[in-house]
């Protein structure tokens, strides 16, 4: 009762990063609210997975293991998750803002008749006063998200319905292990009694999911190029620089749309969110939709020939210059200095 639920997503029967990120955030919220953190895994052949979760500070893992539950399909997962929510009455339920989470979340919220906030980038506990009724609420979940094409940041609350549900973007919360010896309990769900035959309405004919090739959210150093980099060939220069530093290449949407590099490297509101130790923004103007995905980087170096480019305001070091002059020099000096 009154605990925090995290729906854990699987990728080839491995718990996906987004779920570990949510558990890490969920742990902090649970400490704040003095309640338990509970994970829900729904799939098949997953009995080994709880021990991966406990170190993140998970107090209970609910497992629904059944052939009919893998791969993910909307209605069976909705039925199991909703049934568990009704029984356990969590105060908060978190789901990833991924193609699975955004398929499942709204379905669950409509079945329970509760609110759902999509695509949050921050979660905070706080109080709320309804200005119309004057009613005051303690310890609600502030669900914070960009809206209106990224031009505004809205804080949403669900004062009266439970659980408070939100989907959270990939990469914005940090994965953090609490303790390798943290132990919680495992509760198995009796799936057969819950699934009706007509719950299985979809037949999966084919599934081709590529493994993640580019690991931007895990990279410590990111060398990102924008439209100003000008060509695919010039991106090779960025790649050389990134390889030298042991980093990954990222990109703005304008660079991706121009075909300079692949879509999986896009950073920003409609790409991935990153928070590396060091972020190079090269030939990137600094549109809000881009900076939304990188402004939490520990250090930012901008390289832009336009002294008024907004990206310079965000940078720790703003280099006003041509990237094709600056990058070769950086490569040369780095090789000299790191010898």
């Amino acid at each position: 009762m009154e605990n925090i639920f995290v729906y854990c997503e699987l990728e080839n029967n491995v718990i996906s990063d987004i779920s570990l990120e949510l558990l890490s955030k969920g742990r902090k919220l649970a400490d704040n609210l003095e309640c338990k953190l509970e994970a829900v895994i729904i799939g098949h052949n997953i009995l080994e997975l709880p021990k991966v979760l406990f170190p993140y500070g998970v107090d209970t893992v609910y497992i629904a293991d059944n052939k009919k539950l893998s791969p993910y399909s909307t209605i069976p997962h909705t039925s199991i998750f909703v049934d568990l929510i009704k029984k356990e009455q969590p105060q908060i339920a978190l789901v990833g803002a991924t193609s699975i989470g955004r398929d499942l979340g709204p379905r669950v919220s409509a079945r329970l008749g509760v609110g759902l906030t999509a695509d949050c980038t921050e979660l905070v506990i706080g109080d709320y006063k309804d200005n119309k009724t004057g009613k005051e609420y303690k310890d609600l979940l502030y669900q914070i998200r960009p809206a209106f094409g990224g031009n505004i940041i809205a804080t949403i609350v669900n004062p009266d319905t439970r659980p408070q549900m939100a989907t959270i973007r990939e990469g914005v919360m940090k994965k953090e292990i609490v303790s390798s010896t943290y132990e919680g309990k495992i509760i198995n769900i009796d799936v057969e009694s819950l699934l009706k035959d007509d719950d299985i309405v979809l037949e999966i004919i084919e599934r081709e999911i590529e493994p993640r090739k580019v690991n931007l959210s895990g990279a410590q150093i990111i060398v990102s190029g924008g439209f100003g980099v000008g060509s695919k060939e010039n991106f090779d220069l960025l790649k050389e620089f990134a390889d030298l530093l042991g980093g990954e290449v990222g990109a703005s949407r304008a660079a991706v749309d121009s075909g300079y590099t692949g879509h999986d490297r896009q950073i920003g509101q409609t790409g991935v969110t990153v928070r590396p130790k060091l972020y190079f923004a090269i030939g990137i103007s600094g549109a809000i939709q881009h900076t939304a995905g990188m402004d939490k980087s520990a250090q930012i170096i901008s390289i832009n020939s336009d002294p008024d480019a907004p990206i310079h305001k965000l940078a720790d070091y703003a280099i006003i210059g041509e990237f094709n002059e600056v990058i070769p020099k950086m490569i040369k000096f780095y090789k000299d200095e790191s010898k």
Partner: protein
Amino acid sequence: MGLKIIVLAKQVPDTRNVGKNAMRADGTVNRGALSAIYNPEDLNALEQALLIKDKFKDTEITLLTMGPPRAADIIRESLYRGIDKGFLITDRRFAGADTLATSYVISKAVLKCSPFDIILSGRQAIDGDTAQVGPQTAEHLGIAQITYAEEIQSIDKSSIQVKRRLERGIEVVKSKLPVLITVHGSASKCRPKNAKLLMKYKYAKTNTELQALNEDYMNSFKAKPYLNIEELNLDDLGCDIERVGLKGSPTKVKNIENVVFKSKDSKRLTASNRDIKGLIKTLIESRVVG
């Protein structure tokens, strides 16, 4: 074979072009300066419906849009492209609805158009980017859903096969009808307006719009019933007033902030050897790199 298809489409402010002129001096968005457009992915959804109709001529496409009176534009835009009928769901009491309240009203309107085989919606609307109204509508109706559809591969009287576009791949699924499908922006682009249909429906109007016009217009209008765009309000749909509008919306906006860049005290450097060498040294010494 003819199918009954319902398309859900929304009029949205063009948030993709929030340029300098749409931002006020105090940093807030001036919504009035943004043009109202057909939500991009809803055009992809409309095209899927039209493609089915190309194949099965007896197919009937009904479009539903919920919004203020001017959202009648969405229905005209759709009539020009080949839908059979459109309803404007409009009522002041619906104002302030979140996705749950919106999807409830839409599901009531869908029931008015029952029976149906397929509902097509966009994946998400660019004003809220929630991607919730489609799946929530399916849940209210108790029917199956297929999200992120890129291509409808085959249909027969009782089932449909669809290719879905996921973050890192594709999935092909088969579902029984009826089903709600949300269409991804990577699906076929919508066809342009048809010149003949444009001539035919140019003067299509809702009753609200008609009241602002003169009598001559009204009379010529009455002779052509196909020009009437029907409006549906709370009472027409038999909605529970507790479940609509602000009151029926469990999510509340606590506050809104404009995004402003907090300037860091950044060090400005040039491309000179001295500056670049100095920076690289600092990075190595502070162990940020190396």
